[in-house]
């Protein structure tokens, strides 16, 4: 009972500790063919393929190339052929697909496909891309279909999109500024690096149905896109998603599903499975965006922010996928959680010959937070002001407006001040202290804010049915990828129906045919959107239970209450009827019956959200914010330049902790990932654009023992009043300000501002050397 507010274990937890939890590649029906990709070994080149030999190798059923497929896909802008046609635009791009009876045969034939490359000039950095006379990654940019506006491509350039914020009068802002600071930043693309690689299987039945199973975070998007690309009825396409082994935004992009469909189509509809190798998962499937940014802030002598001018160049790699949406999300909150009257922000989505990018945990907010928070620290230095004090002075609050002119309330914003004050308390101590002859302890702190930047018409739904024993079944369209979304929904339903959590049965897997649509399991929105739908479904079921019970108990429905599996007279709980006796119709002693099966229905659609204006950026990008303050203590070795994060702190406004242990561990996991991004992670390309780190041994993520000695996670609870039980999104947020906080601490330790990621000892050595050389 009282499921909400308790640390309820994940429903599927027992299966996860016994090897019985099933993920996509664990469920392969007999007779499934295997597909293997042939990928490009050049970043930018004209290609010619020779596939005849591969086609005739033993076990091979078919070989597909870009010539066999005339299709351009893309979430926002349709710019990406599923298999390269004529030229390749990144190292790792799929150029052919081999379908064979087994993995060994498929891989052997894939190696036998000959690709002749005629190299083209490689656009290897954002600077290359925007330089005058740059080689074009896409010659026909002007002709691409805009699938999901707003998107503003600039033909005959490498600029796929330009998003803007124009707020107030920048000139006035600069006139009012006694102090100005500017910073230039370059942050690499990053890997999602979920331990489960992406996987998709497709089968086309003779009755026209298309069965797809994949690791997607967006099964309903897969369904819609396949229907659109291949001229099918949406109902013909059935997408199922078992448990997902980590996603972090990377599995919201639709890529392998399209290839699996094409593969099945090429072999008369037989089931075909395509599983990424680790190398393909890193180099062929999309990464998180890289960012080059110029940030300029102006403040009055008292330290009140007057103006912000920001230019972002997002390295989207070879294709746009969702980057124009990420760019707008960054624009929406471009100032960080501060009050700035005059804002000018330009965000360019830039094509390069890099692996293409998609959403990454935080949807642009970790690089955004990094550039803003680093510049705030520079401003504090210039004003000779305590960085915490500068932040406190400028914090945005209820009554203020965001850069998109969205008016804030305590409910929509939460309490950034409480987060900042508490985090500052937890990190009390000097910014830098000598703790030994060669050791320095340093501290750094940073703030984040984030709203969802989801489509204004995003929807969710929930269906509740009953079992004969009075327990309930809950169906929602959210994907379980580790965040515990299904369990949270079950908690909400249990709470509302007054049932034990064990009495709520969930469908762990999503099936688009029977589960109600949930937009996508992204943006940490499941608790809010699916939760609202579950609440409505619970109320709907309760109303039906009461109307049948009212007849049985000879009273008005309004006289009744629902709890503990019973519908009872509020005035006398001893007069009741059990769920199990009414949920499938009530049968009188004589055998006659009334009522019928009860099905609770709930749905939710976003309210009052709008697209951002193309010129000014004005609009309403999300239902609420999650704000937080994070900080670290590091130990720096002055001789070797090595450092270690010894303590990490997060104070986050959770609205309401629905599942305290779940919230804490989710945030801690995010913090660990954030420290990884700060200290070691970043996609690397060679001179010719070849990928240098497409394995875990070269793309280093955190490992045991590298985590801080202590994690401190505290929650502030400022309810979001239109959210289930007041709970705010939390899934992405643990990592958002960690890289900025680490950079702040390292800057204090070495006495020089750090504006890059990842902050490796080598990079610090370089930084010190260039600074000395310049002297």
């Amino acid at each position, binding site marked *: 009972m009282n499921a909400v507010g308790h640390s309820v274990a994940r429903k599927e937890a027992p299966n996860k500790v*016994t090897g*019985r939890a099933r993920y996509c590649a664990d469920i392969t029906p007999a007779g499934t063919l295997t597909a293997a990709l042939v990928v490009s070994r050049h970043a930018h080149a004209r290609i010619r393929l020779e596939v005849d030999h591969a086609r005739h190798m033993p076990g091979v059923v078919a070989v597909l190339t870009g010539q066999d497929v005339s299709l351009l896909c893309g979430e926002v802008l349709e710019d990406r052929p599923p298999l390269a046609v004529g030229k390749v635009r990144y190292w790792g791009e799929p150029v052919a697909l081999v379908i064979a009876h087994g993995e060994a045969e498929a891989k052997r034939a894939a190696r036998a496909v000959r690709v002749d490359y005629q190299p083209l000039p490689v656009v290897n950095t954002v600077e290359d891309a925007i330089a005058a006379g740059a080689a074009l990654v896409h010659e026909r940019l002007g002709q691409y279909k805009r699938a999901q506006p707003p998107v503003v491509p600039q033909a005959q350039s490498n600029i796929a999109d330009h998003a803007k914020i124009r707020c107030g009068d920048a000139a006035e802002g600069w006139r009012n500024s006694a102090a100005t600071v500017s910073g230039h930043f370059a942050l690499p693309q990053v890997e999602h690096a979920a331990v489960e690689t992406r996987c998709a299987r497709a089968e086309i039945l003779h009755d026209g149905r298309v069965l797809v199973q994949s690791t997607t975070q967006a099964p309903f998007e897969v369904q819609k896109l396949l229907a659109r690309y291949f001229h099918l009825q949406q109902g013909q396409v059935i997408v199922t998603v078992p448990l997902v082994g*980590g996603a972090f935004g990377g599995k919201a992009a639709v890529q392998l599903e399209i290839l699996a469909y094409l593969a099945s189509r090429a072999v008369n509809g037989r089931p075909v499975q395509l599983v990424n190798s680790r190398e393909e998962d890193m180099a062929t499937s999309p990464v998180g965006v890289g960012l080059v940014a110029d940030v300029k802030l102006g403040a009055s002598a008292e330290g009140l922010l007057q103006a912000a001018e920001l230019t972002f160049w997002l390295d989207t790699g070879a294709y746009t996928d969702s980057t124009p949406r990420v760019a707008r999300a960054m624009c929406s909150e471009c100032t960080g959680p501060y009050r700035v009257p005059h804002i000018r922000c330009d965000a360019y989505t830039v094509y390069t010959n890099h692996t293409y990018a998609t959403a990454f945990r935080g949807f642009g907010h970790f690089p955004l937070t990094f550039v803003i928070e680093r510049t705030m620290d520079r401003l504090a230095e210039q004003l000779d002001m305590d960085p915490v004090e500068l932040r406190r002075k400028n914090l945005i609050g209820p009554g203020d407006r965001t850069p998109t002119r969205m008016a804030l309330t305590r409910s929509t914003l939460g309490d950034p001040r409480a987060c900042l004050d508490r985090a500052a308390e937890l990190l009390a101590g000097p910014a830098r202290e000598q703790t030994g002859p060669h050791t320095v302890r340093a501290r750094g702190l940073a703030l984040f804010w984030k709203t969802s930047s989801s489509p204004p018409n995003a929807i969710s739904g929930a269906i509740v049915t009953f079992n004969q024993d009075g327990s309930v079944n809950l169906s929602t369209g959210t994907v379980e990828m580790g965040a515990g979304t299904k369990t949270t929904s079950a908690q909400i339903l249990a709470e509302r129906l007054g049932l034990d959590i064990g009495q709520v049965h969930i469908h762990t897997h999503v099936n688009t045919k029977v589960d109600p649509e949930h937009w996508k399991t992204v943006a940490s929105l499941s608790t809010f959107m699916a939760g609202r739908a579950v609440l409505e479904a619970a109320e709907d079921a309760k109303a039906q239970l009461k109307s049948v019970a009212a007849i049985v108990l000879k009273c008005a429905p309004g006289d009744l209450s629902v709890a503990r599996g019973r519908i009872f007279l509020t005035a006398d709980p001893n007069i009741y009827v059990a769920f199990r006796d009414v949920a499938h119709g009530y049968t009188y002693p004589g055998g006659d019956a009334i009522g019928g099966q009860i099905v609770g229905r709930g749905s939710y659609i976003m309210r009052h959200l709008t697209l951002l204006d193309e010129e000014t950026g004005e609009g309403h990008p999300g239902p609420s914010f999650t704000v937080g303050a994070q900080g670290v203590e590091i130990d720096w070795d002055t001789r070797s330049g090595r450092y270690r994060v010894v303590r990490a702190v997060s104070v986050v406004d959770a609205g309401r902790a629905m599942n305290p242990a779940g919230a804490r*561990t989710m945030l801690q996991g995010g913090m660990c990932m954030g420290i990884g991004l700060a200290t070691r992670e970043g996609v690397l390309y060679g001179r010719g654009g070849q990928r240098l780190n497409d394995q875990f041994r070269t793309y280093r993520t955190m*490992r045991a023992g590298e985590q801080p000695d202590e994690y401190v996670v505290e929650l502030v609870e400022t309810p979001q009043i239109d959210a289930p039980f007041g709970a705010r999104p939390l899934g992405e947020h643990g990592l958002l300000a960690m890289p900025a906080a680490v950079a702040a601490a390292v800057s204090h330790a070495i006495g020089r501002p750090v504006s890059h990621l990842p902050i490796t000892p080598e990079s610090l050595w370089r930084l010190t050397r260039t600074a000395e050389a310049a002297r």
Partner: protein
Amino acid sequence: MATSHTGRAEHLITVNGEQRRVTLRPADTLLYILRDELGLTGAKPGCENGDCGACTVLVDGVPMKSCLLLAIEFATPEEPAAGAVPRHIETVESLDETEVQRQFLDHWAFQCGYCTSGFLMLAEGLRRQRPGASPGEVVDWLRSNICRCTSYAEIIQAVRGTLERERSAPPPV
């Protein structure tokens, strides 16, 4: 022993205490045979080159990455030589209500659960091989595997908890 022209042949291997008959090629990894031939999908592929540990199983009680082992090494002849002991493979499916599983549950030592089988087998191997492992040694062992969801603190606590529990438990009678 029937050998086909592709090099596939039938062999016996011992997994989780059961003798199983499998058809394998000399190049098949143990991970592949466990998952695709024996239906034991608890061991997961995460990299197939030894970097991530999601495929960890116990070989004669020692944790090993099954993506780096060839299944054929574990094949026993139909009529083993006198005194020959078949090498015994244990997968996560063999764990049943063990302390290490309880500790992983209690400490929220997983989120998506994809790395969990590997970490559990690693921890179970540690428990058997080095029951007196120091905290530092625990971390050294755990470094061989990757988890992208948790903060590692939860996993380390679960493993230390397992060892502590074991040390404080009365010896079996």
